[in-house]
């Protein structure tokens, strides 16, 4: 079924278009700068929200909107003593937690209908296998506990270091390492049947 090679996805190397002048412009209330900030982060914020909320698109869009409104209202508090992205993702994680508490929504991934809008554009020959693999991975991610899921999302969606993940989640680097380890093992256990059926790029 999955004998084709799935695409290699490198760790996201975030080359941010956001520099200090954009942040200062945002703090001055410059709408163009705010739009630039939004465009830079919207997909990654949305992805983390989507995977955190079990694939609920509407809730994820809502969280994305809330995150940016909070960001706009609080950007004057950003002091530059932390990485901007770390600061932003604290907002994302907290907003997702609030949303989960509020809604207690747990939509199963069987209802997850947004798999076709992935940003990647793989070649025709691997698209099918990649799409199918991606579906299985998303379903397995959805089954992880939030404790294990969030470090994985921050690592693989944002490309954060352990130190940055620890700063966002307000825990130690050792805790991040332990949770990622457990998360990886849980994914391998849940999708163990894919071994030998699919070749995943290094």
């Amino acid at each position, binding site marked *: 079924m999955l004998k084709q090679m799935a695409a290699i*996805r*490198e*760790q*996201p*190397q975030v080359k941010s278009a956001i*520099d*200090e002048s954009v*942040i*200062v412009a945002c*703090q*001055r*209330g410059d*709408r163009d700068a*705010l739009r630039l900030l*939004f465009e830079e982060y*919207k*997909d990654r*914020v*949305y*992805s983390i929200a989507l*995977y955190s909320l079990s694939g609920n698109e509407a809730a994820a*869009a809502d969280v*994305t*909107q809330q995150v*940016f*409104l909070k960001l706009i*209202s609080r950007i004057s508090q*950003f*002091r*530059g003593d932390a*990485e*901007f992205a770390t600061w932003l993702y604290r907002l994302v994680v907290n907003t997702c937690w609030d949303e989960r508490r509020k809604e207690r929504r747990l939509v199963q991934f069987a209802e997850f209908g*947004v798999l076709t*809008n*992935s*940003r*990647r554009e793989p070649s025709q020959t691997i698209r099918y296998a*990649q799409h199918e*693999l*991606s579906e299985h*991975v*998303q379903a*397995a*991610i959805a089954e992880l506990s939030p404790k294990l899921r969030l470090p994985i999302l921050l690592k*693989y*969606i944002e490309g954060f270091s*352990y130190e940055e993940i620890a700063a966002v989640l307000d825990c130690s*680097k050792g805790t991040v*390492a332990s949770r990622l*380890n457990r*998360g*990886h*093992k*849980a*994914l*391998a256990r849940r*999708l163990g049947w*894919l071994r030998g059926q699919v070749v*995943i790029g*290094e």
Partner: protein
Amino acid sequence: MFTRHVTRKFSAYLHEELSPEENRRVAEHLIGCNRCRVEFERVRFGMRLAQQLPIMTAPQSVWPEIDAALRKEPVTQMITGRRSRPATRLAIAASIIVLLVGSVLIIRSFFSGAQPSWAVARLEGTPRIGSRAIVGEGNLRVGQWLETDAGSRAQIDVGTIGQVEVDPNTRVRLLETKPTEHRLELARGRMSARVWAPPRLFFVNTPSGIAEDLGCAYTLEVDDDGNSILHVTSGWVSLQLTNRESSVPAGAACATRRGIGPGTPYFEDASEGFRSALAKFDFSADKMSKDSALKIIIGEAHARDVMTLWYLLSRVDASERGPVYDRMAELVPPPEAVTRAGILSLNQQMLERWKEKLAFAPNPNSPKLNLKKI
């Protein structure tokens, strides 16, 4: 000495988040601990799965809704809220933020721009990285060539997983270095590698095949035509080109030819006649020449050469398989339940069973390598 299991550190190890000492401890432990190696493969598989997680595109409707909210309340009012301050204080605060954020971004861009590299030490003469001579020590970055002339030698630290010694008249290039793969290209010349990482992390590309480390020490030499010869001194090395693959154990060697790939592995104590006949069998295009070479191989084979014969079972024509089997059975009788008919029809289970008896399969509990310098 037995060390504590390191299963909790695998993700950090694969993400290069450990200190060099911890990294080395994990790598060393993995060589000798089968249990941890199984667990390591599980974590690595989970990591590869997580890497497939796609970034989704946010719906178009999100920004218009934010924009609408901004229109209801002026942006500046949202931002400054009730805590608006005198313009001068704001300007000072903004300047400080600019300074701090600027410093952070400059430092970050400086570090993120740094390419991964391997440390290179001059051993003799004047080795060069690109056009730059190495005086004492240097760094080999991804894409760069390290070249030695007739009078120079160099030593490369392969990240934290091993060392490579580069002999005179050699040209090597660093192709990749990341947690799941370290890869060199050997265009010509000779290099000796000692790797203490888990299997399948260190690769060397040559014009006639790829050497994949299975936990080992070896020497690899490439001539001006792109053909190579591999000598394994410890552990195992796999040689591959397209669909041809040979696993070479310690004490054995294997030649490769450009456009053909790896030949059949043989132990270095095989007779001269055996080795030259094997080269003819592996790389000659002439059928008659191959047939006569096979007869010599069968005739010259001793007990240790059964490894070579085992490989030949699946490389000879079906009509030639019988004599190969008979000689093998004479030298090392097959285990029970392994039949002549089964082997002649290339029954995989029987082949593997016999291979196990021959004890040249890669041993997952192979002894630890000496981690001292080559």
